[in-house]
């Protein structure tokens, strides 16, 4: 089932949290929803799940508008909220049964689904524990299990891996990938690797506006044009000399005899540098093309000052 967001605007008091954003997610797609803190990710998700009303614009899940048929939408959507709210004094299986009951499951069907979810989310050994005694990683699994209990067609996950340790992050990511078969999944994060690990389409949001909505591969290509080359020489060299090399657009001093060079129009200038050093008989200690990372794309798109600036 598809998810369509049309000119969604949310104003809190005088602050505009979302400024007429629109995007759509096709049936079966996994989309990463990326943005710095306070960009409007959670607000978008809360409106999509019917928790918050929008100021204007609407969200359509399948054939239903959230504002018109909230109950229908809530039946289709599985939601893991940002801080993973759970009833801490309930047992794991009790919580899942309770949530399943809210979705109208009962009897053997409910029992079957609870068992299935416990197994899928790796909670077999924890099912008889109280949620308050569980670690964050296991709580997150319970959160996922309750979001999945009614086999939702659309899954909305708000920062599913925040606050977890690296091992747990890998496990939860794996789990999300496993469960996302045949489902439309939107998950938010501010961790870039996450997107690379899980999905192929990214929507980047900043200050309530969508700044990018594309395939991951395409996004990485945008950045390619300003990819730098890091060079380190053994002896000192004048910046001017480097600047006079063919195709070199920009030279930045990084450290002692260490420079960052940017070629014109994305041309690979490594051969030029190598030629230069061999002609001048200066040993080249390092020549490295910067890895194109989603981090740099992200910084570029959201205009946060880059750390080496």
């Amino acid at each position, binding site marked *: 089932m598809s998810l369509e967001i049309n000119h969604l605007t949310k104003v809190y008091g005088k602050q505009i949290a979302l400024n007429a954003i629109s995007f759509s997610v096709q049936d079966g797609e996994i989309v990463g929803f990326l943005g710095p803190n306070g960009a409007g990710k959670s607000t978008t998700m*809360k409106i999509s*799940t*019917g*928790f*918050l*009303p929008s100021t204007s614009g609407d969200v359509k899940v399948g054939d239903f508008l959230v504002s018109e048929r909230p*109950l*229908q939408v*809530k*039946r289709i*959507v599985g*939601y893991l*909220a940002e*801080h993973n*709210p*759970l*009833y*801490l004094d309930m047992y794991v299986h009790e919580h899942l049964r309770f*949530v399943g009951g*809210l*979705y*109208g499951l009962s009897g053997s069907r409910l029992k079957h689904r609870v068992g299935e979810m416990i197994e899928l989310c790796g909670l077999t050994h924890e099912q008889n524990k109280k949620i308050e005694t569980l670690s964050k990683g296991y709580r997150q699994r319970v959160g996922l299990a*309750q979001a999945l209990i009614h086999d939702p067609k659309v899954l909305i996950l708000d920062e599913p891996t925040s606050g977890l340790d690296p091992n747990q992050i890998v496990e939860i990511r794996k789990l999300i990938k496993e469960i996302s078969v045949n489902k439309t999944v939107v998950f938010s994060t501010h961790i870039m690797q996450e997107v690379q690990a899980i999905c192929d389409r990214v929507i980047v949001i900043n200050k309530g506006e969508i700044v990018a909505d594309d395939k991951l591969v395409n996004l990485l290509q945008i950045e390619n044009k300003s990819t730098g080359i890091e060079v380190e020489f053994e002896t000192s060299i004048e910046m001017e000399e480097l600047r006079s090399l063919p195709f070199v657009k920009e030279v930045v001093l990084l450290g002692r005899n260490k420079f960052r060079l940017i070629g014109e129009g994305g041309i690979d200038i490594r051969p030029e540098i190598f030629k230069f050093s061999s002609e001048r008989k200066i040993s080249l200690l390092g020549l490295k093309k910067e890895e194109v990372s989603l981090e740099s794309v992200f910084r570029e798109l959201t205009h946060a000052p880059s750390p080496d600036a």
Partner: protein
Amino acid sequence: MVIAVFLTGIGLLMWVFPETSVLEYGFADMDTLFSMGPYVLIFLVPAITMKSFAEEKKLGTLELLFTKPLSDWDIVIGKFLAAFLLVVITLLPTLVYYLSIVKLGNPVGNVDTPGVVGSYIGLVMLGGVFCSIGIFASSITSNQIVAFILAAFFCFIFYSGLESLSSLPIFGSQGLLIKQLGILYHYESTSKGLMDSRDLTYFLSVTGLMLVFTKIKVSQHY
């Protein structure tokens, strides 16, 4: 917990404390239960209801609940029934007192049964009103202590505060109207075994009104 405290408290008042004990009093009636019961409930019902919305708001589980396919009314009524049911269960064991008094009466069975039935209905209705007040108080704050204090205060004002206010001379002939707004006026008349539809209407409408307020408040959870 709440049940145990209520039963211990009311049991002590009813059978042990000499000022209020039935055994000392010498008449086979349950007035102690029905006159002291509401005061005990003023403190106990808010303790039951204080967490209903306040805790969910604080823990963020309201988001869990409101993203499930439930209407706002489903949630409010659910919370109310949970609290109300607990109050009813708390009151059930006091039926034993009735049996004891029937046996202790001289001659045996010399008890004002219609009065007792009316009083029980009154007490249950009162429990309903207190529950709805408590749930409303819980919906307007995310602090359980505040919810408790507000609820106890409102319960008290509604129960006997209005009654006491109405006797102030400045109200003059308006006094009766204010008195009728209070719970005590209606509670006393049902306690006499007098089932008046006006009293029932009063109890049900106060409960309903409080739940409507709660629903309005809860719908604005953003």
